[in-house]
């Protein structure tokens, strides 16, 4: 398992070295917004999220590995696309230094670090897939991995925003928007694991329900309390499919 993940992580080494050097000091806008640095972080996000996505898809196997490897980088990058103008406009509205490229650099740095942590957690997910984890427990594990990665990325974002005036308001507002947009983006581009009872693997599901209600349902289901009738045969996991 480790060898497979290590092989998949080889293209990350350059970006990983940069990101590893990064946490030691506060991010400097000029460094983060240089075109080379933006390209490097873009590549880190694409590769890192694709690796984690592929491992998520491995719970189901087959074409889902490819689907999830395509969708997860899209989730991260589209979240960056919709959140960057928010940061720039907040900075501008509050009389802070506002520069779209610098803000994009900071957001990509934050998401890049999150993706790096996701790559680090990929073996855990792969192990769960190989051990044929229950579908709902796999969801809970995924939420836990993404939460850890999110917190790691958050530290970079907060450090970058925590300068100048109005920093509390800008940070709180951006984090709120990030949470809203990120969870909705994840939800819109689902499935990543695919319910075991589904015979066909859809690239995208129809718009219904919400991310938070889904996590609540998964928590109940992981404890054996089934509420929904989405799977009439109530198949409980990949191992029993």
């Amino acid at each position, binding site marked *: 398992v480790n060898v497979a993940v290590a092989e998949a992580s080889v293209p990350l080494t350059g970006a990983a070295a940069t990101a590893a050097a990064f946490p030691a000091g506060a991010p400097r806008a000029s460094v983060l917004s240089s075109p080379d640095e933006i390209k490097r972080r873009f590549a880190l996000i694409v590769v890192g999220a694709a690796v984690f996505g592929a491992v998520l898809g491995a719970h189901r196997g087959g074409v889902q590995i490819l689907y999830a490897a395509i969708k997860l980088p899209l989730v991260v990058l589209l979240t960056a696309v919709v959140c960057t103008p928010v940061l720039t406009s907040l900075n501008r509205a509050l009389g802070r230094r506002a520069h779209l490229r610098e803000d994009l650099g900071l957001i990509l740095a934050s998401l890049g670090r999150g993706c790096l942590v996701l790559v680090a957690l990929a073996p855990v997910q792969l192990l769960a897939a190989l051990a044929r984890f229950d579908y709902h427990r796999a969801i809970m594990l995924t939420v836990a991995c993404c939460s850890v990665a999110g917190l790691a990325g958050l530290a970079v974002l907060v450090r970058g925003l925590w300068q100048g005036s109005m920093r509390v308001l800008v940070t709180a507002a951006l984090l*709120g*928007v990030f949470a809203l947009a990120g969870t909705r983006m994840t939800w819109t581009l689902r499935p990543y694991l695919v319910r075991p009872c589904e015979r066909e693997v859809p690239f995208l599901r129809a718009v219904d329900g*919400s991310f938070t209600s889904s996590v609540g349902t998964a928590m109940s289901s992981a404890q054996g309390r089934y509420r929904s009738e989405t799977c009439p045969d109530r198949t409980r996991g990949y191992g029993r499919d």
Partner: protein
Amino acid sequence: MRTIDWRSAIRTLLPGLAGTLAAGAVLGLPFGPRQVVHLGLLFPAIIFGVTLFCAPTLCIASSLLGNALEPARAASALSEGVASAGHALLGVLPVGLFLATTSASRDDGFLVLVPLVLTGIVVGVVRLAVALRPLWQERPVMKALLFGWTAMAMAMGLLLFGRCLPGGAL
């Protein structure tokens, strides 16, 4: 006494108008195309209307409390606040559009947009408070006045907007 430079005031207010117009239109998205136009026009009208209607209260009350706020200075601070709110609302527009178009139901779509729009308005209020800092910095009573005035204006705007929503969604 300072005079009001209308040309610069209008230039300052343009982003405010654009931002509130766009925010109103996005708020109307979950309710259909007619409401996009309706709320798109209504939202800026409420923001500008409430601000104009409540502005004299701020000047008169500050004068009664012994720290008179000149109308020109009040106008400048208020236009700065509205412009900042507009900038912030323009920035949250892409997220708002995304959230509105990917919501499972009308109510979900609307409810998720409300905090975004409130963020823009809070940004405007904070900018107003910063612009009037010399007024309230040394006298706590002026701080209370500004807080009370803001609460009153926001409550008024919220109630007006709630009454105009289709089916009283708020």
